C-alpha cells in the first residue's frame, strides 16, 4: 500500500498568509503533528517575494509595488526575488529523516524538482532540472525553487509559470545598472518561458495542480490525499502573519 501524504490547495491568499502557512506546516511537521505535506497555491493580489538574504530596498521598487497593488514579503528561504502573478506555487514539507528525501541538499532539490518535471510531462511539456534550483524547457526557465531546513524538517517551495509578464516584473524589480535595463529585459524574455508560451493555451490553475499532483505521486511513489490545515496550523499561520511576515522588522531586515 502506498504511503499517504497530505495535499493542500489554498488559492488566492495574501503574501503574508502564504509564507505564514508554509512556516506553520513546517513547524507542525517538525513536531510530528503534521504529515508530509504538498501544497499548491496562488497569490492575491500578485506579490513579490524576496530571498531571505536579499535587501528589500535594493531589489524592489516599493513605490511601483504600491501603485500597481503588488504585495511584498521576505521568504524564510534563500534565493532570488520572484514576482508571483500567473503561476502555480508549490511547497513541500517533509522530515529531513524521511527515507524518500536525500540528506544532501542539492540532491534533494533535484529529487523534488523531479516531481515538477513529471507534472509538466502530463501537460505535454518536456523539461529538465538545471542546477542549482531551476527547471528549464529548451534552455528557458519555467520553474524556480528555494529550500530551507529547520528543526530537522525540509521546506521547499517554488513556482511553475503558467504565464509571465516580464515587462511588469521589471517595473517592480530594481536592476543593478539602470543603463542596461532594456537589454536585461530583452535577455530575460529570451531566458524565461511559461506553460502558455509553450502550449499556446490558457491552462487553468486546477489543470496545472492536477498534473503536479500526479507528478509528486509518481516521483515519490506516494498517494496525495486532499486535506485541510489543522486548527493548530491555522492558529500558527495567524501568529506568524502578525508577528513576522507582515512586520517592518522582518521585511526590511536587510
Amino acid at each position, binding site marked *: 500500500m502506498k504511503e499517504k501524504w497530505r495535499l493542500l490547495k489554498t488559492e488566492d491568499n495574501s503574501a503574508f498568509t502564504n509564507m505564514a502557512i508554509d512556516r506553520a506546516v513546517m513547524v507542525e511537521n517538525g513536531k510530528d503533528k503534521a504529515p508530509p505535506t504538498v501544497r499548491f497555491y496562488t497569490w492575491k493580489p500578485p506579490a513579490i517575494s524576496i530571498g531571505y*538574504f536579499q535587501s528589500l530596498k535594493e531589489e524592489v521598487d516599493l513605490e511601483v509595488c504600491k501603485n500597481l497593488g503588488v504585495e511584498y514579503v521576505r521568504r524564510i*528561504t534563500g534565493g532570488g526575488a520572484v514576482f508571483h502573478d500567473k503561476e502555480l506555487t508549490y511547497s513541500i514539507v517533509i522530515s529531513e529523516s524521511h527515507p524518500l528525501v536525500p540528506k544532501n541538499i542539492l540532491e534533494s532539490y533535484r529529487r523534488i524538482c523531479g516531481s515538477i518535471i513529471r507534472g509538466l510531462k502530463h501537460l505535454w511539456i518536456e523539461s529538465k532540472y538545471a542546477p542549482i534550483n531551476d527547471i528549464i524547457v529548451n534552455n528557458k526557465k519555467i520553474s524556480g525553487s528555494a529550500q*530551507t531546513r529547520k528543526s530537522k524538517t525540509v521546506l521547499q517551495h517554488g513556482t511553475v509559470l503558467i504565464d509571465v509578464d516580464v515587462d511588469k516584473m521589471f517595473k517592480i524589480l530594481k536592476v543593478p545598472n539602470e543603463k542596461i535595463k532594456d537589454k536585461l529585459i530583452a535577455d530575460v524574455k529570451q531566458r524565461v518561458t511559461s506553460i502558455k508560451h509553450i502550449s499556446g493555451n490558457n491552462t487553468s490553475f486546477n489543470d496545472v495542480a492536477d498534473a503536479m499532483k500526479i507528478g509528486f505521486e509518481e516521483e515519490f511513489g506516494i498517494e496525495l490525499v486532499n486535506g485541510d490545515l489543522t486548527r493548530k496550523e491555522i492558529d500558527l499561520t495567524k501568529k506568524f502573519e502578525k508577528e513576522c511576515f507582515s512586520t517592518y522588522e522582518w521585511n526590511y531586515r536587510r
Partner: protein
Amino acid sequence: MQLKSVYKIPNGKLLKIILDYNSKNKSINNISITGDFFAYPEESIDIMEEKLKDTLLIKENLFEKINSVIKKYNIEFIGLDAEGLVEGIFRCLK
C-alpha cells in the same frame, strides 16, 4: 566609509556587499552580505557578518577568518563560497 559591490560568483549567485570600513587601519567596521545565494543554516550569515567585524582587509586574513567561521558553525553555502565572499569584499574597495 561605506562602499558597495555587486559580484556574480562564478557558477554561483549574485552577491551584493555593503562594506563600512575603517580607512585608517583598513579593517571592517560593519558588513552586510546580501544576495540570491543559499546558506544553511540561514542564521549563519548574521554570524558571519558579526565575526568579520574588525577583521583586517588583507586577503589572506579574510579568507582564513571566513573559512574558520564556516568550519566552526558548520555552514553550507550554495551559490556562494569563501573565495567569492573575499572577492566581493575587495570589489568594494575598487
